């Protein structure tokens, strides 16, 4: 039971930090709506439904990137990784706690983005919403792991997109094409791999 309570404590800490700083979530909300607006002008009228949906996915991936870049900033700047590693908590709990927090921010941004998309462009079918939910899982699991890597580097804002975008390509394909089974497969494989690999990314021992 303690693993779940560790994850809960860590995730609550992140939500509390965000509530206090109020930086990540507002910027993600504004970013996704601004991106959709720009895409509206980027699309000649009468474009196909698939094109519009493709742009929704582009907007979601970059919005998620915004949240992921901020994910470990507190831990890195105040060297809190040391504090967390010193506790007897399993290192993967740190990853899962952070992934859940980023997932919450992403869903909050999507609660605004999807209706906006439906209003701006064509309607939204249930399949796309399901695909978005499944994609969020993949984005947050892999993105959180790569966020922890990027934050250890010097140019972290530059590094994270480079590390993460190639991994996001299959997610976009699965999302735009609506292959829900493929997204489930992607989530299962990479969530497990991220869960196992996180320990090596945060601690040297």
């Amino acid at each position, binding site marked *: 039971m303690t693993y779940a309570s560790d994850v809960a404590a860590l995730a609550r*800490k992140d939500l509390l930090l965000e509530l206090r700083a109020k930086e990540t979530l507002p910027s993600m909300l504004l970013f996704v709506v601004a991106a959709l607006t720009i895409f509206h002008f980027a699309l000649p009228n009468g474009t196909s439904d698939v094109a519009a949906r493709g742009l929704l996915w582009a907007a979601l991936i970059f919005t998620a990137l915004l949240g992921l870049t901020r994910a470990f900033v*507190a831990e890195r700047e105040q060297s809190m990784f*040391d504090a967390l*590693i010193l506790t*007897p908590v399993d290192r993967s709990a740190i990853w899962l706690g952070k992934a859940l927090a980023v997932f919450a921010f992403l869903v909050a941004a999507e609660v605004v983005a999807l209706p906006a998309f439906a209003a701006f462009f064509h309607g939204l079918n249930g399949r796309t919403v399901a695909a978005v939910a499944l994609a969020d899982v993949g984005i947050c699991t892999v993105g959180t792991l790569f966020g922890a890597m990027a934050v250890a580097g010097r140019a972290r804002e530059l590094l994270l997109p480079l590390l993460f975008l190639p991994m996001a390509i299959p997610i976009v394909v699965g999302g735009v094409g609506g292959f829900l089974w493929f997204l489930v497969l992607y989530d299962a494989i990479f969530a497990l791999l991220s869960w196992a690999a996180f320990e090596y990314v945060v601690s*040297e021992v």
Partner: protein
Amino acid sequence: MIQARALAKRFGDRRVFAGVDLDVPDGGFLLVTGPNGSGKTTLLRVLAGLAAPTAGELQLPPRHTIGYLGHEPLVYRELTPLENLTLFGRLYRLPERGERIGMLLERFGLWDVRHERVSTFSRGMQQRLGLCRVLLHEPTHLLLDEPYNALDAEGAMLLDGIFDEPRTWVVATHEPERVERQATERLAFA
């Protein structure tokens, strides 16, 4: 009990320290002296299990018995002392957290500011909160890196009192006079 044989650490090409042998029995007090940048901090990080030695054997006690305080207080600046200590209390799985947190904050004179954000604190107050965090889970091994550095007068006096408690100590400092009398082992870094 902390034991090391021919411990070495390098960053890329730069050799931080090598051939370090240590034997700190339970209740012992190892004083690590040497100028800044001579590798004291890195050695303490290795002994705390935060960094991997490049070579050598190392015997460390289990993680929950280790308390480490470096130059940073290792607390979340946007949270309050109470929130910080509650979080770490839960992560260290302490049963009756509330009492212990209250007692520590009281002892280090932080009780009145327990609901204010750490970012509003002076450097001395932050370091005292760092000491609270280190002592929270009652570690039997305490690793302190330049503990007097950022402490104010009141904090320094409190710290003197702590050194008398029966624990295994490893203290790194470039002004060893204050803890000279307790030291049972010494390690001087060039």
